């Protein structure tokens, strides 16, 4: 009995690894074909990417990028675990970062007060923005996919309206960029200077804490169990005593709050202000990463690192004379193959388990009958 359980577990692990590996291999093959089609040597390109990607300054860059992506992946994954498709992470984090930047610029309090305030403000803004979609879904049955897409557009307009000199923004010293008042030095988040390799953002540690919290809350608490139950079967959840509507609203709020954190590494560790060139579209990256990481805290981390690596190295390829669109191709193919590979592997796994259980039971039965015959 024990042995079989172990075997199934081992197999499950293997199957779990099989899907992303399959997807990566498929992506590599397709990318190689694309590079070949442009008349270049894919082997060279890949080795160039590899050697450049592991350089120490690249490592720091990738870690910094991955911090942002990880938070985005977790924000989306919270929705996914509930069967909610929070496309609005993008609007949520941009609006949150903007409002938080405005607040941060206006605060003169010491850092130990200001930084938590800025972070809380961002989380609250994100939660509020996501909460609108949650509220509409619970009360009016509006699909969260539709409402969050709309809210993304609205967030863009709201930011564009408020990000003007005289409203909540100002011109920078050079007079070329519109931005919010920069944060005072005291409100910078701590960072680690690694010397020539660059500066490692301290927000990395917050991302790690968020990841641990995500794992703990979902896997070890009653609340997390309820949330996963709703995600797996709304009917079973309702029958088991979970208020599905309340759960939808709550998880939307949490997803939005985590989305609010996405802009924080950039704001507190890097730009210290919100301007028109504040990174956009990370919410969508988060969807890809959550898919890639299969909503698992470790998987999302690996996905985020991979995304950072790809960005760093394909940027470099551009200097070497390759087309920079290769990045988009690789990312797109990875996401597509991941979705397909997971579904294929999941179905195969379920079927295989059923067969194994059947076979094992038949063997057990055969054993007992034999025993009876002997006796």
């Amino acid at each position: 009995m024990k042995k079989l359980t172990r075997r199934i577990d081992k197999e499950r692990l293997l199957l779990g690894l099989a899907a992303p590996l399959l997807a990566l291999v498929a992506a590599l093959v397709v990318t190689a074909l694309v590079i070949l089609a442009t008349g270049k040597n894919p082997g060279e390109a890949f080795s160039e990417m590899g050697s450049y990607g592991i350089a120490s300054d690249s490592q720091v860059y990738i870690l910094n990028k991955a911090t942002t992506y990880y938070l985005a992946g977790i924000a989306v994954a919270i929705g996914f675990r509930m069967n909610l498709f929070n496309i609005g992470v993008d609007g949520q984090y941009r609006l949150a970062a903007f409002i938080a930047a405005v607040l941060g610029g206006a605060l003169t309090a010491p850092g130990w007060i200001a930084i938590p305030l800025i972070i809380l403000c961002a989380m609250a803004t994100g939660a509020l923005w996501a909460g609108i979609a949650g509220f509409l879904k619970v009360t009016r049955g509006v699909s969260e996919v539709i409402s969050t897409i709309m809210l993304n557009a609205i967030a863009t307009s709201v930011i564009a309206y408020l990000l003007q000199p005289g409203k909540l923004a100002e011109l920078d010293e050079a007079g070329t960029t519109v931005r919010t008042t920069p944060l005072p030095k005291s409100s910078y988040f701590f960072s680690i200077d690694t010397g020539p390799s660059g500066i490692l953002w301290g927000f990395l540690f917050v991302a790690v804490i968020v990841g641990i919290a995500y794992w703990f809350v979902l896997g070890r608490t009653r609340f997390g169990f309820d949330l996963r139950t709703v995600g797996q079967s709304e009917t079973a959840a309702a029958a088991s005593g979970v208020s599905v509507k309340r759960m939808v609203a709550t998880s939307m709020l949490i997803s939005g709050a985590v989305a609010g954190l996405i802009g924080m590494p950039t704001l507190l560790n890097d730009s210290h202000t919100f301007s028109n060139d504040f990174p956009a579209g990370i919410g969508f990256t988060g969807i890809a990463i959550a898919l890639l990481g299969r909503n698992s805290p470790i998987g999302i981390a690996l996905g985020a690192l991979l995304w950072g690596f790809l960005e760093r190295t394909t940027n470099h390829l551009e200097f070497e004379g390759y087309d920079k669109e290769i990045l988009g191709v690789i990312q797109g193919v990875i996401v597509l193959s991941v979705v397909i590979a997971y579904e294929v592997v999941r179905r195969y796994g379920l079927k295989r388990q059923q067969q194994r259980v059947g076979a094992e039971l038949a063997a057990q039965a055969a054993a007992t009958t034999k025993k009876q015959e002997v006796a």
Partner: protein
Amino acid sequence: MHALCGENGAGKSTLMKILYGMQQPDEGTIIVDGEQVTFHNPADAIARGIGMVHQHFMLADNLTVLENIVLGAERLYGIGAKARAKVKEISDAYGLNVRPDVLMEQLGVADRQRVEILKVLYRGAKTLILDEPTAVLVPQEVDALFDNLRELKAEGLTVIFISHKLGEVLSVADEITVIRRGTTVGTADPKTTTTKQLAELMVGSELPTPETEESTVTDVPLLKVEGLHLTQTDLDGVERIILDQIDFTIHKGEVLGIAGVEGNGQSELVEAIMGIRTPDAGSITLDGTDISQLPTRRRRESGVGYIPEDRHRHGLLLEAPLWENRILGHVTERPNSRGGLLDLKAARTDTERIVEAYDVRTPGIEVTAASLSGGNQQKLIVGREMSHKPKLLIAAHPTRGVDVGAQAAIWDHIREARREGLAVLLISADLDELIGLSDTLRVMYRGRLVADADPATITPEELGSAMTGAASGHLEHPEQTEDDDR
């Protein structure tokens, strides 16, 4: 007419799926009319004259009977007069009495089943597979169905049917094949076999009887339902009364059985008591406390166990491991959690205990619920609900789709808990089960409790007539006529 019997999980459904091309066999051959064939999908099977009537009907409610029959087979006879003539012809030939222009939603279960059979015949089937065709029918309807099937047989068609009800199998089949754990364990001749022998062949054990022993009913009321009323507005804006003035009391140690054709408000009644549906009026009192306003979770915590009628939709997380399914519905209670935190170790240990105590046949507790057979899934649910010492157990079709062995085990568990003062609300389509387990019987028809009966004297036939609305009030048993052969 060939009947296929076997315990749940024995492989009956899988075998039928292979015959109908829904699943591919690893090895072995299928021979139709002396010719070896392979089916890649149901279309291949249909082309060979094999048709299947599923346990759950696949019909569109908003279409007429004719439209439902023609749907997907338009190429055969078109959708006009020719198709209508063909439907009429088949219907008359086999005495199916199908009215082509009635909307499907106006038909009862038995009529729907006839439409399903006609659908299959319309596609030219010479071999009919019926998956538990009698599970949803009352005895009178079962007899009518069997008459239809005999008609088909007389016309030279082959019928394969799957059933758990051994009495029916013996009365209607010409040949019986029994399978156990995926292999044929024997064939039986219905003329010379008794139900007991057949059951022993199936499970290798005694045939269980749902006889309750001495009454354990006390006079302490545990669940009191008063004036429960529920209406629902359907898509056309018409208000339909689902539950109409439901009143009943269940005492400690009492099993109240509710008989009725499915769809007469039983599911809604259960959901109203569980707090999944909010009734328009009425009160529900559990052990002296009014629980009408409590959410589902509080009701469960205050001692209501629930065996849902559709275990896949309401009772299990199919893709989650068994131990997570053990937590489902009782996440706030020990041993599953302490404070706000889950106690995974205790939950796992307790799952092992349930698997052991309730004879859930599984290689371990880490496998998903979906990989267990229906009977074992049900045993897990029963074990889970009983583990929290409920005061009231709501059991909706507790042994549906469960083999004889598991059925006996589940009945035993209910009886044992009843002796300790458990009150049970039993809803079932299996009249033998209802009569055997219940202390009091009520009949539900169109949202009302129309009749009551004493399970000690009532027969399934009498109950059946009340279920179709033909009789109401207190059902008295005409003393001398029926003998107790059931």
